[in-house]
């Protein structure tokens, strides 16, 4: 795409692993592009697909979902649910004609700051190549109220 396009990526991180991995990358001064905005969840299992759709329709060009490695979830099995939701979301996006690469799932333990930084860097370049997601909420889900008179018993009869 054009040279001036800077992708905006929303990254969901898990409190117990990937958020700490990002923190580690920071303290270790591992560089990754500033295109990503990280949001901390208590677990990747908290990730409702609504969050991903909200991000995409509110201006994000991509969404990174991160969590603990399989078998290492702080809440035992919740990251498997994340994996299933992610795979379902990819299928929905594909059928809608949206590049499934706009969402990405990465497992990163608290020790993997370098790995997470690399994954973020890779994803930014991948989304840059895809170009902007013409995301829009052109219509609010509910348009603003127009003032009109509430019915009363008196007004009810013309």
């Amino acid at each position, binding site marked *: 795409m054009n040279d001036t396009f800077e992708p905006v990526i929303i990254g969901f991180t898990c409190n117990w692993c990937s958020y700490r991995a990002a923190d580690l990358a920071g303290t270790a001064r591992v560089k990754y592009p500033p295109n990503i905005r990280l949001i901390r969840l208590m677990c990747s299992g908290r990730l409702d697909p*609504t969050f991903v759709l909200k991000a995409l329709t509110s201006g994000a060009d991509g969404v990174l979902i991160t969590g603990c490695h399989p078998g290492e979830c702080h809440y035992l099995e919740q990251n*498997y*649910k994340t994996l299933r939701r992610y795979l*379902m979301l990819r299928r929905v996006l594909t059928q809608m*004609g949206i590049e499934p690469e706009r969402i990405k799932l990465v497992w990163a333990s608290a020790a993997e700051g370098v790995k997470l930084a690399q994954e973020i860097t890779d994803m930014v370049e991948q989304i840059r190549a895809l170009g902007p997601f013409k995301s829009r909420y052109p219509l609010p889900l509910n348009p603003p109220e127009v003032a009109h008179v509430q019915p009363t018993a008196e007004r009810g009869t013309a």
Partner: protein
Amino acid sequence: MSVNGKPKFAMYWAASCGGCEIAVLNIHEKILDVDANFEVVFWPVAMDAKYKDVEAMPDEAITLTLFNGGIRNTENEAMAHLMRRKSKILVAFGSCACAGCIPGLANLSTREQIFEAVYEGVSTDNPTGIRPDFQWAAPEGNLHIPEFYPVLKTLDQVVAVDYYMPGCPPESHQIGAVVDLVIQALQGKATLPPTGSVIGAGTSTVCDECPRIRNVKTIQHFTRIQQLAAIDPNLCLLEQGIPCNGPATRSGCGALCPRAGAQCIGCYGSSDGTLDFGARLMTAFASVIEGKEPAEIERVLDTLPDPVGQFYRFSLAHSMLRAAPVVLEEEEQYATHHH
């Protein structure tokens, strides 16, 4: 205007099938209460009245309008604005007006794709490939037919809506209850719920009304209900591998379909507090699908061949994505061209 002093009632259909009208007539003898308490001034499916009759009414002359159908063309939109202006209470009636319903699934396809299917599809005999012209200069003058929009919109995406009454169609006992409520409110014996409320439905999910037993079993593959030799009459349909939309669907129907041995398909739309029906349903399905390896999960998902049709059957037009990006682009171009 009113010859008998009764409050006025209207019902209009936009992009819909007519099932909502049948559902209203299906309230049986309560229809007599409607007649006793309202003057029916406009209801194209049931009586002869012209648009110009409605246009001639003072604003807010109609007390209650049930508007069913989505906004698919210029006529639908003009009527949405007209009925809004002329009505005190405008109800988005039925799944199409509330969330797009089946017509909303066309938001996956461009206008060209839709026209191709309609005018050149296998079931159409149209050897010369005739397509409608929205405008045509006839010797007698210019002729117009409503222009087809790129995107199907819900009623609240074009005008403000007072109440939502979901269902495909809304259940008759619920319609009866709403009619009673409005009549009582007009008589000062009840107050109407706050603007924007969902009426004639519950707040929870179909699962809460479903008597079937849930065991938290996991699903290795989904099966179309018609391919099953036998269905356990007591066990949760989802746990039998039938893709049931009950976990995301608003209650209010009494779990009619699961009780009858058919899966819920989601016609009552999202339950309270849910922004996106499909997202909610994906979350629910993720909890029962078996598999911890991507390949294993993909195998289960392969048995759901139409994910958007499954997760957004009645709700695509009111979902967060609303339509395929290519269709939204078409809509943008259309809007720029026409304004």
